[in-house]
């Protein structure tokens, strides 16, 4: 099957944090089935969605991701029994926080993709990519990185006092 490739002005950068047992395997299945999806996604493999720290998502946005996908096993199917349940609770809270900070939640997607759902992986990635493409780039966090980066120097009296009090 040949898919007509269209060139776009904006190619969003999508980062996917996936668990190794379900979604990574599901993405493998999409490959062995030769399904096609946008090449914008970069996959980072974790043993379990339970391992994924929300900080990783923030960092990914800072490092230029325009959209982030977190995907693991379906609830109840976790290889590690309950990791995805912890992830689900954690990210429910985290989403609310991101919303509060002002991040458009359309840039952050959570999904369950099992090892048998190659097609679903393709759908999820395609949908997220196209959605983020219409939203345009996300510069806010990138700028934030430069502003807030701490040189490591204790160059204000407040900082010095705080540092000393830790001992």
């Amino acid at each position: 099957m040949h898919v007509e490739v269209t060139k776009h002005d904006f190619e969003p950068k999508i980062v996917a944090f996936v668990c190794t047992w379900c979604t990574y395997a599901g993405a493998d299945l999409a490959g062995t089935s030769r399904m096609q999806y946008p090449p914008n996604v970069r996959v980072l493999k974790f043993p379990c969605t339970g391992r994924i720290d929300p900080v990783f998502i923030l960092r990914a946005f800072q490092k230029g991701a325009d959209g982030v996908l977190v995907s693991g096993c379906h609830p109840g199917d976790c290889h590690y029994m309950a990791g995805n349940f912890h992830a689900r609770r954690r990210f429910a809270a985290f989403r609310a926080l991101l919303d509060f900070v002002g991040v458009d939640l359309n840039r952050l997607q959570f999904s369950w993709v099992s090892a048998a759902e190659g097609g679903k992986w393709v759908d999820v990635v395609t949908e997220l990519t196209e959605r983020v493409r219409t939203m345009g780039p996300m510069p806010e966090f990138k700028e934030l990185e430069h502003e807030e980066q701490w040189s490591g120097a204790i160059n204000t009296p407040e900082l010095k006092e705080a540092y000393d009090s830790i001992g």
Partner: protein
Amino acid sequence: MSRIGVFVCHCGENISRTVDVEQVAKAAGEIPGVAFSCDYKYMCSDPGQTLLKKAVAEHKLDGVLVAACSPRMHEKTFRKAAEAAGLNPYLCEMANIREHCSWVHEDRDMATAKAKDIVKLMVERVRKGKSLAPITVPVTKRALVIGGGIAGIQAALDIADAGHRVVLVEREPSIGGHMAQLSETFPTLDCSQCIMTPKMVDVANHPNITLFTYSEIEKVDGYIGNFQVTVKHKARSVDESKCTGCGICMTKCPKKKIPNEFDQGHGMRPAIYVPFPQAVPNTPVIDRENCTMFQSGKCGVCAKVCGPGAVDYEQQDTFTVEDVGAIVVATGFKLYTIDRKPEGSPIQGYGEFGYGTIPDIIDGMTFERLASASGPTGGKILRPSDGKEPKQVVFIQCVGSRAREKGISYCSKVCCMYTAKHTMLYHHKVHDGQAYVFFMDARTPGKGYDEFWRRAVEEEEAVYIRGMVSRMYQRGDKIVVMGSDIQVGVQVEIEADLVVLATAVQPQDGADLLAQKLGISYDKYNFYSEAHAKLKPVECATAGIYLAGACQGPKDIPDTVSQASAAAAKVMTLFAKDKLERDPVVAKVNEKYCVGCFACKKVCAYGAIEEKEIRDRQGNLVKKVAYVNPGVCGGCGTCQATCPSKSIELDGYTDEQIMAMIEAL
């Protein structure tokens, strides 16, 4: 500065067709810290692996990245090659540029750019990787089998015959389980007890088997190879070491009219009893709730007549701790009943069949007892209400099973076959009787099974009616059965003398509680979950625990025996080694920073995290910290994402590694 080698594979044309592998290799070579990069047609081939080994030696590489297929495909291959070249295998990683890149994208430029990115990320992962050593744990070569039905018996005998010691724990006073209750078995119609009791005797006589009946699992500690299991030995009120099994206590017991559980309540037994004559062990127990001595303090007949003085009214429950390396769970099933269920129960009864109040509506197991030569009627088919021989018997399949409205949507698998068997047994015993079967589908896959069912229809003259029964009620001494034949499209009414329900197979009572003690998972019905439906059908997700028989799902005897032997084989495989090696992806605690909040302990699904005391030289408690038992840790990393002080870390997926990868985005 690290010295990483990057090897980009063409995979024939699978990768190189859409990814410019030369460019990827070239770009990789320009990443700081990459000391060597190349591309090759088939990295997994012998010459490919040799190329990798040579490069490690020549360029003194301290890390290897193979950009090729999915790590699920060849990670083991390349880690072995790296190890052969003298590198720690965990410093070898794979970048998936086939399944995740070349196969799913058409645009060569974009695919190549993506492949470069993937390689860049993975180089960072290799750079921050650590040498890891496989974890070894010793193995106690003694197995525990829970449940003494045919599954547990088969597993215990197989393991014991292989030369390993086995502890077999059974909740009831005798082993034998449900198979001992059956009259004849399909599809051969051989007598169940005739093939079962010799196996029970084998268990009792086997030098490698320790048998604990009337005992339950109290507590399970430890992990694969090293379980400590506390067994509760319920007070039998009879000293097993003294009892000779003469049975005089049972004949003299004045309380004889207690419904016998073994006969489904249709025969009688005394208060001091063995469940059935061939019981193993042949040592009676006193049913304290029904014993006059225990209830009113007066009687004591059994103690007076017991020659060896084995009866002991003062006996207490005792506990032992058994060290075992593997556990086979074989707790079997119970049958669903149509009784009214307590309010809020997820399972419902059958009000339309009278909620079990009509005496001549019985279940399949009761029919087995009626048909059994050792049963309460001596093998004659006589109905419970008035002891008459029923001339019209209606069998109804799928009662409870395949009825999601009643709370059970699965098929119980054995009912089609045993109902066919029942019609045959009935026809053999009551020549002028007629059997009717209401059924939806005849599910008879299995060797000789469909032929068996057809025989029931064609030769034994059972009338099969495709349709279900809506309602049954008593009219005089008959039961009016209101059903339908969907093929003809009419309602069917039969005045039956006896109705036999093929009720659903459910897990044993307390299956969920046992699972919680063992730390294994179970489904919403309380059937135990296997690790993989296809490829790990006897393993649990919890290492070292195996499943056999109907506790995992409804099964007939041949399937149960096969699974029991398979579970035994898994135990033997485990016992073939003195030490266990396992993947070192486990969490470790940085005790310096751990504040002992134990948030990690709460989220750990494996119970791998313990509280460890840190003491100074004087022995004063300084603080408590978390400690991860590497034998138990499953390696999910949930603890690390949860830890507020970032003082627990999963080897192979450290924050440092992941952050480095994100930085390289």
